[in-house]
């Protein structure tokens, strides 16, 4: 669900979403993954990443983001959310997706949304839905 400032989409001029398949980052090291993500964010695009980063990579992404604020004009940080189906799955499905994840070297049952804070005001998340609130 995409909303602007809590209301239905109104006068919005447009925004760009880039899908990033996990295959594009699978063989990259943590540094390169983060560089790639931040490069897209700096182009004012919202990333829909197939899979998710590790917790350590997420922490590093936040750290690198902080290091960039104040050094890159108009960059105020990012909004980040991960949606995962893990909690909803039964044992068999968890085992199956676990096996797929091992083979693919990533958590493909998840989707990560990363957007520049200058465009994305907030990503509201609860177990049932995700809302992308855009800046006015």
């Amino acid at each position, binding site marked *: 669900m995409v909303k602007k400032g809590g209301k239905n989409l109104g006068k919005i001029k447009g925004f760009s979403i880039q899908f990033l398949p996990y295959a594009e980052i699978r063989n990259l090291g943590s540094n390169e993954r983060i560089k790639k993500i931040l490069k897209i964010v700096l182009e004012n695009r919202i990333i829909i990443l197939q899979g998710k980063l*590790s*917790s*350590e990579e*997420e*922490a*590093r992404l*936040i*750290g690198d*983001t*902080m*290091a960039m*604020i*104040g050094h890159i004009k108009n960059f*105020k*940080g*990012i*909004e*980040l*959310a*991960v949606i995962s189906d893990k909690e909803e799955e039964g044992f068999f499905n968890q085992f199956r997706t676990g096996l797929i994840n091992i083979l693919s070297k990533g958590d493909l049952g998840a989707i990560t949304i990363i957007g520049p*804070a200058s465009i994305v005001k907030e*990503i*509201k*998340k*609860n*177990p049932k839905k995700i809302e992308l609130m855009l800046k006015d």
Partner: protein
Amino acid sequence: MVIKIIRNFFRNIFGGLFKNKEDIKLGFYGPPNAGKTSLANRICKDFTGEEIGKVSKIPHETRKVQFKEKVEIEYKNKKMTFKMIDTPGIATKIDYEDFLKYNMKKKEAKERAKTATQGIVESIKWLDDMDLVVIVLDATENPYSQVNITIIGNLVARKIPVLIVANKVDLKNADIKKIESAFPEYEVVGLSAKYGKNLEEFYESLLKLSKKI
């Protein structure tokens, strides 16, 4: 005289054995304005009579990691000594314009934003050095924020025990159950750091968890 010699003998032997044992490094982590410093202050005041840092309604008041050494927490005949580490709130974005709402001048707001970003980097670096972490969450806010999940994920990866605090239970719209259902694998203690409500349960859980280190 003989008793004194024997006492000194044992003191030297056992004192030497435990001399290098450091105090438990207890970190306070969480998003900005959740009440990390308020809780750390409450604990420090209860057991040392001094506070660890300044609190404010303006987010990112704590912009440097703050310490309090040798805080001996005693509850129900159990006692443990901690090194308290209060960390700046972790966020994914900082906009100096948000500080202008608090009647701050532009220059001051920009400086605050700059030091806040540095504080977050410092908080993340300190994750490696903790023995035990209390995650302080605002019970009136949505707990499903990725920052909370990222912090906990990092602590799990480092095998650091975690206690979750649902702070601000004195407020009408506080919802501890929401935090409990967001983090079902963890013990959640609801309290009010501001008014010192339910600190007993917190001390009990903290000392229990300290044994897992």
